[in-house]
């Protein structure tokens, strides 16, 4: 069934990476939680992240029981939900904002909200507003069949995750199945800034690249320009920064202050990749 109103004219996730590779660049991928402090701030934040040079933006859909998230993103989700943020209101906002962005959006959501809506219906509605990709952290490879089928039918790239505890054979299967990019979780744990990123990431990147030429983006824990630079040096094709960005918006005294600090921080992170 054809979908109307494909409003995004940006490249998809894989194409973005191809272009960056061609230009010898590493992707900068920030993450923010939709609705914290409120959706209009999120809309502004998306535009700022875009103009400051983000190559892809991950947008989190707040959920009541986020198993993969640490205290910063948990708190952001709780605040967003308390304000009444839900998928419909997020999609309404995206409908307005995505046409103004030059980089693609990947939605980061847990599985139950997708199931509640119906997997196919979910894909249709997010595609309608111009979302390009999807990350679902609580669906392991064995359970992704339905998601992958529906995502691919509707041209949504389903990004899969691999971690330091994933055995090599399994990692191979995951990278073979992932679309857009492979999300390499940098550490054994949940989201949240870390003081340093484990050296294991470097060897994991090498192992993955020995198996596949698909782009790999590293996430979890990355919170400073130094970390970002290090990931690029270790061979990452993309660097994801989540909690550190969410914290800036969440801790700010006002949305305006948050957006201002967000701009400064984003520029400092992006500059580490130039």
């Amino acid at each position, binding site marked *: 069934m054809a979908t109307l109103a494909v409003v995004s004219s940006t490249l998809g996730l894989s194409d973005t990476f191809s272009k960056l590779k061609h230009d010898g660049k590493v992707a900068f991928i920030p993450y923010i939680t939709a609705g914290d402090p409120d959706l209009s701030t999120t809309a502004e934040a998306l535009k700022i992240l875009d103009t400051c040079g983000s190559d892809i933006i991950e947008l989190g859909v707040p959920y009541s*029981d986020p*198993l*993969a998230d640490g205290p910063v993103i*948990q708190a952001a989700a709780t605040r967003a939900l308390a304000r009444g943020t839900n998928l419909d209101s997020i999609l309404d906002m995206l409908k307005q904002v995505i046409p103004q962005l030059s980089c693609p959006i990947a939605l980061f959501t847990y599985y*139950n909200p997708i199931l*509640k809506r119906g997997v196919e219906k979910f894909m249709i509605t997010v595609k309608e507003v111009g979302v390009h990709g999807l990350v679902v952290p609580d669906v392991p490879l*064995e359970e992704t069949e339905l998601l992958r089928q529906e995502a691919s039918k509707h041209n949504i790239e389903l990004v899969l995750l691999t971690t330091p505890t994933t055995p090599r054979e399994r990692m191979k299967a995951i990278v073979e199945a992932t679309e857009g990019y492979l999300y390499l979780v940098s550490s054994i744990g949940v989201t949240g800034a870390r003081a340093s990123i484990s050296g294991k990431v470097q060897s994991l990147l090498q192992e993955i690249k020995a198996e596949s030429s698909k782009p790999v983006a590293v996430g979890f824990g990355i919170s400073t320009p130094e970390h970002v630079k290090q990931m690029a040096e270790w061979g990452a094709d993309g660097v994801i920064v989540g909690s550190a960005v969410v914290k800036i918006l969440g801790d700010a005294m006002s949305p305006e202050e948050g957006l201002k600090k967000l701009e400064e921080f984003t520029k400092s992170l992006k500059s580490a990749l130039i």
Partner: protein
Amino acid sequence: MAFSSSSSNLTAYTATAITKPSSSPVIRFNKASTFRPKPISISCVMTQQSTNSSAAAVEDTAALRPDPLGRFGKFGGKYVPETLMYALSELETAFRALATDYEFQKKLDGILRDYVGRESPLYFAERLTEHYKRPNGEGPEIYLKREDLNHTGAHKINNAVAQALLAKKLGKERIIAETGAGQHGVATATVCARFGLKCIIYMGAQDMERQALNVFRMRLLGAEVRAVHSGTATLKDATSEAIRDWVTNVETTHYILGSVAGPHPYPMMVREFHAVIGKETRKQALEKWGGKPDVLVACVGGGSNAMGLFHEFVEDKEVRMIGVEAAGFGLDSGKHAATLTKGEVGVLHGAMSYLLQDDDGQIIEPHSISAGLDYPGVGPEHSFLKDIGRAEYHSITDEEALEAFKRLSRLEGIIPALETSHALAYLEKLCPTLPNGAKVVLNCSGRGDKDVHTAIKHLQV
């Protein structure tokens, strides 16, 4: 007499490799219910063929509880962050190996007998039976399976001891657990003290307030109790936090999940560790009246005591199985925990099952006077048994449970847990419909000492 010489209580979780004679006819039953021994192959899910062959395989796998992916029909599975997947398969492999580990079985057997106090009696509740006699003198016979007599006062310890032993086998020295009312937390703290394991219990800050006695007990037993303030600060949030801890510390830590919920292999494993309840019941029923129970009744929160009783009898089609959930303030009040009656299918804490959720798929905070039933999900195997019509699920309000709490105390001198009181309350509706002499076995899953403070607030005695 604690156990029969064939250690029949242990064969519940052994694979068909065991050829020890058993006093109960479980061998054919095990064939239908155990997992396949060969390792899980990822490629079978990946290829196109898998969808085509699945139709033919459905007939086959529907009989498997669970199938190799940990599914009971469409329920169950492993919906967790990738970081945990290896630990889950490691856990399953270790659990499977127990089938031929006689040392483990002997040790567990000994602990269940000498430390937990098994086997628990099957008690004929004379005055309760009298209470349900109709004017013409006819009525069912009520038997109580006395899990309340176990060490720590509930069935929870069966699973806790076995998992603690399993953790030691895995070389994990750090144990974490979630708890609602505190009974599973107390059972876990108890076994960690017994086996010298470091113990951390996650408990919702709200729950800690209403079950202060259990918090004290856990700390007295040497456990660290961590308050969870996120979300609604109740059991579901404690469970989420325990899962996050496990994601972070998976290499050193074993997560003793307290019910037949969560990702595979937990629903299967916890069921097998509680299956001793049903196995003993079969033997005891045979001894007492030379037959099987006609009806099994148990309360359902996550579903562990119910699965422990039901599992043995699932293949005995003439045995009726009834699970009783918490209707809280009433099914239409929006304040209940009747997941199987009012919930919808979704994914919570690693498993696909019925759960209480709002229109956006956010998990709702349930309500029940009994903290142990106050969980918005339910074990996936119960969801499966409901859907195939093998078991029935009803619900009982706070008020009805409190009445039953008083009733058993007065009629039998047994103060039941508020959770158990829900099952007891259902007898009021069930017994008038049963034929004369029908044998009802109700799982008396816990004793009610822990509930006196709550009872004082609500009851005039």
